[in-house]
């Protein structure tokens, strides 16, 4: 019979570290997908996920089984990703003049005929990544959670530890900042 999360956690707290393995196996795919939204290099992604698991292991005693383990783990993951963003603020003013050829082509197609520029295109996805990289950490986090993962403001407040009004303010600022970046991109490329 498969052991539940609660059984595994209880075993880990009794000192059976091996019982942590099934939890790692079950939730790592989700954590890797989350970390890949914030870090580009695979080595950074792996570092983030590893840090999340180490924190989870060390703070396991503070887990109250009032909510599912996954929610608690995702809170740790989001906060670790946010710390990563704050610690790795690269020169965000990277110019759009160095768009890759597919990204440039996608944008060209969008300008000439907005409708057919395929939304699924890999180039579009890379372009989003490039725009998000230029956002400050709170804006990037809130755009990812609110617009891309389509989470509610209340959920975001719970995940990040921010208050609901703060999430709303940061979302408003993030959208404005994103529009400013897109306008800059358009200006650089077409004026």
């Amino acid at each position, binding site marked *: 019979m498969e052991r539940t999360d609660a059984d595994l956690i209880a075993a880990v707290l009794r000192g059976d570290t091996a019982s942590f*393995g099934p939890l790692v196996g079950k939730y*790592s795919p989700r954590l890797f997908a989350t970390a890949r939204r914030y870090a580009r290099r695979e080595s950074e992604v792996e570092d983030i996920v590893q840090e999340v*698991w180490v924190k989870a292991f*060390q703070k396991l005693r503070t887990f109250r089984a009032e909510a599912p383990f996954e929610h608690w783990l995702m809170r740790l993951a989001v906060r670790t990703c946010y710390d990563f963003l704050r610690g790795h603020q690269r020169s965000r003013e990277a110019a759009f003049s160095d768009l890759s050829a597919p990204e440039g082509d996608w944008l060209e197609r*969008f300008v000439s005929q907005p409708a057919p520029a395929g939304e699924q295109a*890999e180039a579009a996805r890379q372009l989003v990544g490039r725009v998000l990289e230029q956002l400050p950490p709170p804006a990037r986090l809130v755009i990812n959670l609110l617009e891309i993962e389509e989470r509610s403001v209340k959920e975001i407040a719970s995940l990040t530890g921010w208050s609901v009004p703060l999430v709303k303010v940061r979302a408003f600022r993030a959208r404005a900042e994103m*529009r400013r970046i897109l*306008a800059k991109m358009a200006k650089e490329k077409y004026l």
Partner: protein
Amino acid sequence: MDLAELERKLIAAARRNPPSEQVPHTFEQRLLARLRACPVPDHWALWSQALWRAAAPCVGVMLLLGAWWWFSPARNLPANDLSQEFERTVLAAAEQEPPPDLSR
């Protein structure tokens, strides 16, 4: 260029292409090996470690204060000097008060 439309399309592209959930090979084994190497911290041990670390600076401060007291010139004054000063200060107000008018 319609920026609102561009933003909508880019967000839609990001939604339709979620990042991969692939876990690197042997990640779980490496992580468990690391967790076994760094066991859960014992908070009492951390507290006693902090106390031991604080002991040396406390002893240092105590020695400095002791040395300061030992070599201070005030140490050569008579031992009852402080008590006399204290008494004089407390009684100063009483001495300055005029005597009560008993004629009324």
